[in-house]
């Protein structure tokens, strides 16, 4: 390779390095969400159906307690393309561990490890958090399903003020005493890494202070070279190093064993969580549903029967963590802290808004219409391999009791306004 070629390669290499360095020049804004919109609509609508999600309080300081809570309905119409929830974990979707999680209960059962959830089951989760990293963070509840991946719930913003250096996360040991998860075992780990690293580098240095490669290769190729390279002092040092290693390992092991006489292995069990089930006096059957692509609306025709003793009014349809409400829903179930960007307060339209009386069976035409279908990328439903929708339909009686039905059915896309009758 001549000088000209070397110069050319240097120029190309420099350009490559400069290209890699470009992102550092421009401002890179932090990610504001966790890709939940990129998940397919049939996955978001018909697996985990989230409702009553709360982020409280939304403003905290470092070390403050916070809570992420809500309910999750496991859709009866779980898609065939998605592995069933035989091993799941209620998780938190956050940009790194901005909060630590101090407790997680599902239907009152601690969920430290993964476990099965039941199709059609209803679960209330309460996740206690402790503010750790200051900032403006987008936090989701998340259902991780083994074989299917994480299904993100609705995301809400939580602010943490203060300084990370003040953060502590103490936990009481069963045998007495308290440790901080931020620093536990750090000193021992660093100490032993430094000890072993130093020994390792000393060993290499012992051989690198002498000619290392070319000269030894030439000698080795000669008659008697192997014996010449077998320096007695190296053998003495090797015996010494072997002894040092075994002694250090023994000291480390027995000292640690004396420090922590009571230990247990990692726990790999699974929680047994009993499901509850939605209660409703309504029976709902989806007769037809279409998706108005240009109008950004899901239109349903439902056959609804009220088998209760009180008139009921439909007030909310929620799917994929996105809420479509009408006046009834706003009056009964408006949480002012719920993120406005995933809630349409005037997004639910019913042809006949009169209450459904006890014993009455009625055909209800329901229209959930909002740009959220577009913004939240649920309009991609038309590209899904499984053309069905799902969601929770909520109705209220006059006493304010809520009746929830999980609904699902086939959906037909309507592509043009001309045919969008």
């Amino acid at each position, binding site marked *: 390779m001549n000088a000209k070629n070397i110069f050319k390669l240097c120029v190309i290499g420099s350009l490559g390095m400069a290209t890699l360095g470009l992102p550092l020049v421009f401002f890179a804004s932090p990610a504001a969400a966790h890709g939940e919109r990129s998940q397919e609509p049939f996955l978001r609508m018909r697996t985990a159906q989230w409702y009553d999600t709360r982020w409280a309080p939304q403003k905290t300081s470092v070390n403050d307690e916070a809570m992420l809570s809500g309910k999750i309905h496991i859709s009866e119409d779980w898609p065939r393309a998605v592995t069933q929830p035989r091993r799941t*974990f209620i*998780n*938190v979707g*956050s940009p*790194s*561990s901005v909060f*630590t*999680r*101090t407790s997680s209960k599902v239907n009152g059962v*601690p969920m*430290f490890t*993964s476990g099965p959830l039941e199709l059609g089951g209803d679960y209330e989760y309460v996740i206690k958090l402790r503010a750790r990293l200051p900032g403006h963070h987008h936090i989701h509840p998340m259902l991780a399903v083994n074989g299917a991946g*994480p299904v993100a719930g609705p995301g809400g913003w939580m602010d943490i003020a203060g300084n990370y250096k003040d953060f502590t996360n103490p*936990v009481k*040991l*069963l045998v007495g005493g308290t*440790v901080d998860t*931020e620093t*536990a*075992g*750090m000193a*021992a780990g660093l100490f*032993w*890494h430094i000890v*072993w*690293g130093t020994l*390792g580098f000393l*060993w*290499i240095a012992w*051989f*690198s202070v*002498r*000619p*290392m*490669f*070319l*000269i*030894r*290769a*030439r*000698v080795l*190729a000669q008659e008697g070279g192997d014996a010449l*390279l*077998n*320096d007695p002092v*190296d053998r003495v040092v*090797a*015996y010494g190093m*072997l002894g040092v*290693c*075994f002694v250090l*390992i023994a000291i480390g*092991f027995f000292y*640690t*064993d004396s420090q*922590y006489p009571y*230990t247990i*292995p*990692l*726990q790999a069990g699974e929680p047994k969580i009993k499901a509850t089930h939605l209660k409703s006096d309504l029976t709902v059957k989806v007769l037809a549903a279409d998706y108005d692509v240009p109008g950004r609306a899901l239109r349903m025709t439902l056959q609804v029967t009220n088998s209760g003793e009180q008139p009921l009014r439909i007030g909310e349809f929620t799917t994929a963590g996105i809420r479509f409400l009408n006046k009834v829903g706003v009056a009964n179930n408006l949480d002012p802290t719920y993120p406005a960007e995933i809630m349409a307060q005037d997004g639910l339209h019913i042809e006949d808004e009169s209450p459904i009386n006890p014993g009455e069976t009625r055909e209800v035409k329901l229209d959930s219409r909002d740009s959220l279908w577009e913004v939240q990328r649920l309009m991609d439903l038309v590209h899904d391999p499984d053309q069905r929708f799902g969601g929770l339909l909520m109705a209220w009686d006059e006493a304010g009791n809520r009746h929830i039905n999980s609904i699902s059915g086939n959906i037909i896309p309507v592509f043009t306004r001309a045919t969008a009758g």
Partner: protein
Amino acid sequence: MALFRTAEIIKASKLPPEGVKLSRMIDAVYFLPIAYLGVFATFHMHFDLLAGDWDFWVDWKDRQFWVTVTPIVEVMYPGAIMYYFWTFYRQPFGATLSITGLLVGKWITIVFAWYWWANFPANFVMPATMVGSALILDCTLLLTRSWMLTAIFGVWAFAMVFNPTQYALFGYSHQPVVVDGQLLSLADYMGFTFVRTGTPEYIRIIEVGSLRTFGGHTVWISAFFSAFVSMLVFTIWWQVGHFVGQSFFWVKGRRGAMTRMNDKMVCGSDEFAAKHGTPDGVAPGARVTARPAATTIS
């Protein structure tokens, strides 16, 4: 009396003083920027792909899979690197170079990726250290001067001392805690408390199977199994080192027959030429024209 045999070795190399000086420069350039950086970059990637999660997280460091998988994966590169350094230079630091290189890469990752970028504390993502095991392996090779005995005794010790070595670093994480009425190890709780959005609990591969029925001595059963597999893996990777690192070339003997010479890094010395001939069949002193001598294939 000199500590080392360096003077004798330099004399035996028959290199002039400027050649010796040049060889030391080559040592420096070859060792640090090429061999060391190359090993730590590639071994780090290799290890993270095969055993990464067990080494990343404190709540993956169980007595079954962690103890089994880590030595098996960590002995691979040392096998090949040891072959190269030992066969061509009789240098007994291939394993230590590999494992310290791996740890340099790991600590760069811990500081910049795990702590600075992802905000996990270093104790939560503390890697295991097998430098002690590597030193034992290198010492065994130096003392036995046999790769087979190294595979049998050195590699066995390499894997067997893994757990006692790590216990000094991670013993604290097996202290019991009770949270919400449930017994957990501190490591379990740390894995729970530090939120990992993309790594839900079920991803953990720990404590699976029936090894636990062996009288509770799971960790030693795992270590024995790991040691035996490590022996096999070491011999395979020693041969990988042989395959990748072999240098052979063809020489023309005095009667004109071409002979393949294996594993010889040096040709061109007068003794070598007298014994084996030269690539082009011309005596060293008689070579006057520039004839292609590049018959070395590697």
